[in-house]
């Protein structure tokens, strides 16, 4: 048992490792350019000297560590280089890489770019803008010398670029070991120490955002789980023992329909008909309500219940239908087994059979379902929180995506994955405790 538990925990490492890698790169690709974009917008609005913006950009990037190599190992083609990420402007970076691929010689391109960069501070601000524009217009399809008209010696250097092409270098892969002073290592280190970094958009710490949000998502998920089981379990037992009753038929039909209704539709309809004030005005439309200072605990609870009723309905109906269907199947299978027939033959009452014999055996699927429901709840609360504007993880992530706050988005993805995995593990372990006959996979292997 312990061995199995340890093995499962060890399996967390590769999964989260791959995930962290994915998350880091996605955030990395998107973030750096976001920074440039932001600075450029500032420049446009303030009308500052372009060279100051340029330098501020580099300083900011250096402060955030973007100039460091991104991983332990750099892989690049010989005609390119491993420090491309030091060029802050994404368009210039792309153009230089294109030109380098065209002529197969990075050193030359780099020399050209260095000259251009050195020239930059010596020019008037109008010329500076022209030069930067030229750099952004470099077109490597046919290396065009007709740009850079105002800068004769740069132009000659640019013309000189395609003279000795070395395209063979395009086909040589290169590797470089960067050591531990790289962005991924530092990011991962901070992450393991519980520091999720800062949001690039509003500079608040991601930890703070997550701390505020996770409480509501957990509350919603746990309440929804409780509601699901307290409705679905009695309903499933009732309808398996009274298959002819009208209520059973209604439940079957109703839950079949529930299964196919999209939850964002139900949520929208719930607001439309019960909260918007145009039809029935029973519940508030969104949010969690404002707690005033003189509220007593019971008043706060009442306020929260009023605000959370509709979200909880929207979040729970789907899993109620799911649990009902699975549990009913399992009960019907159990009912045909010998021990139930024996119990009936002994003359035990229905309730004694139900709770004394059947419940334990039929409820095993409940535990496995728990594992499946947890990720689904996360996904479900995603939309429900957005619709009802509850400040949980779902709303936070949608807001982050809309404001293109990548450092937050991918941390949230990582956290959600972690919680789902913990959920799955708990379900597996509970399953083992509930039914020791079930062999966990590692013990299985040992016997083979």
């Amino acid at each position: 048992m312990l061995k199995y538990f340890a093995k499962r925990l060890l399996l967390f490492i590769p999964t989260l490792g791959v995930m962290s890698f994915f998350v880091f790169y996605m955030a990395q690709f998107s973030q750096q350019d976001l920074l440039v974009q932001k600075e450029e917008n500032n420049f446009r609005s303030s009308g500052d000297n372009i060279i100051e913006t340029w330098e501020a950009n580099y300083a900011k990037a250096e402060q955030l560590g973007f100039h460091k190599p991104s991983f332990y190992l750099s892989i690049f083609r010989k005609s390119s280089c491993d420090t491309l990420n030091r060029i802050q402007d994404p368009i210039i970076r792309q153009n230089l890489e294109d030109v380098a691929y065209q002529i197969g010689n990075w050193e030359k391109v780099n020399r050209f770019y260095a000259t251009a960069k050195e020239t930059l501070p010596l020019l008037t601000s109008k010329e500076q803008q022209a030069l930067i524009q030229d750099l952004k217009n470099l077109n490597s399809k046919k290396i065009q010398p007709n740009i850079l008209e105002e800068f004769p010696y740069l132009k000659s250097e640019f013309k000189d670029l395609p003279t000795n092409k070395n395209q063979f270098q395009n086909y040589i892969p290169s590797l470089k070991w960067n050591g531990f002073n790289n962005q991924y290592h530092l990011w991962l280190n901070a992450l393991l120490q519980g520091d999720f970094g800062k949001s690039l958009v509003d500079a608040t710490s991601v930890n703070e955002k997550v701390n505020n949000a996770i409480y509501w998502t957990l509350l919603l998920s746990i309440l929804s789980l409780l509601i699901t089981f307290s409705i679905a379990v009695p309903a499933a037992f009732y309808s398996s023992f009274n298959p002819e009753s009208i209520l059973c038929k209604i439940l079957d039909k109703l839950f079949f329909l529930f299964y196919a209704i999209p939850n964002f539709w139900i949520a929208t309809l719930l607001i439309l008909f019960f909260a918007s004030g145009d039809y029935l005005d029973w519940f508030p439309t969104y949010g969690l309500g404002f707690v005033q200072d003189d509220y007593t605990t019971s008043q706060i609870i009442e306020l929260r219940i009023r605000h959370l009723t509709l979200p909880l309905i929207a979040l729970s109906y789907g899993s109620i239908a799911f649990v009902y269907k699975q549990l009913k199947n399992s009960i019907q299978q159990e009912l045909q087994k010998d021990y139930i027939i024996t119990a009936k033959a002994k003359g035990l009452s229905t309730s004694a059979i139900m709770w004394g014999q059947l419940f334990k055996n039929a409820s095993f699927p409940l535990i496995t379902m728990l594992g499946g429901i947890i990720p689904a709840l996360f996904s479900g609360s995603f939309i429900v929180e957005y619709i009802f504007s509850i400040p949980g993880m779902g709303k936070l992530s949608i807001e982050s995506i809309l404001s293109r706050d990548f450092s937050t988005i991918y941390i949230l993805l990582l956290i959600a994955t972690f919680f789902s995995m913990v959920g799955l593990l708990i379900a597996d372990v509970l399953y083992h405790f509930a039914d020791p006959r079930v062999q966990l996979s590692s013990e299985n292997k040992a016997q083979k």
Partner: protein
Amino acid sequence: MKSWKKNWAVYYFLIWACIAALAPIIASQGETSQLIKPLIPYSPSAIDYDNSNSISPFDSQQIESNYYRHWLGTDELGRDILSQLLHGSRTAFIIGFGVVFIAGLIGILLGGLAGYFGDRTLFVSKRKLAAGLILFPIYSLSVVTIIPWGISTVSLLQKFVFFAAFSTVFLVVLFLIGKYSRQTTSKRSIPLDLIVSRIIEFIDAIPLLFLLVCLTAVIEPSFFTTILIISSVAWTSIAKYTRGEVIKVKNENYIQSAKALALNNFQILRKHILPNALSPVLVSLSFGMAAAILLEASLSFLGMGISADEASWGKLIASARNNYQAWWLAVFPGLAIFITVVASNKLSELFQQKK
């Protein structure tokens, strides 16, 4: 399969396919096709200024004749809901079948292979395995660097041709090594099942919608990318189904006798296992269709689906959120999604009955 005439979902799918194919003709402004008079004289983005500000289907509308009536009302800008609904069905159809096709292909292939070979029956000689293990890192390193993925002047097609050519060369090298290396008796099994199961576990551990939304943040959504994004997570359930079914079938006696007759793995898989495992797989495909349609609608609802000028059911429901008086904005597209999902589930009964 006899009872397909009694299954209403079959008719629903046929009608749906027709509407999806003919939506631009059924509902258009009329200027484009002079020959045929469209049934609904509004295109989904056409703005009727006389009937803007969300006219209910039952209100009096400012129209010349009943031909111009907005049968399901209009939205805030005065766009016809019925027309948007029909064009939305086209979107749902393309996404639904696209995902079923791609996810089905990946899921059936991986699930089938994992189920059939399991962990200990796919043997490879140690020499070949070693060659593969050495060559694979070289291959992936070269693929990442040599093929000009990041170069904007090389077209995507060229990149893929380059990639395909490169992979072919690599495969030929691998094949030649396999052919001309000395035959040895020492073999090792490849734990195919373990590998596939781990990948499935990994993808299933991530909350689905979360992952999809994160992916749409990086990838520009279009029909094709939306299908790819949804397929990249939807294949796991199909693979799980197929794997389970293949494991069930492969222990049957007729497979044993096929093996005794010295049929090779490929023949057994194609002629004996696939046909017998097909009907449960079709069940999982129709469930996959329902899931794909729901996911597309959810993404569009969040404003992260396909581009803004394509009509989509999810987008229509989202528009109801700005305007809660207009129940018709939410009710009709929701019903369309609901009926389609129920129909997909119903369609699965068709395949179940065969057993």
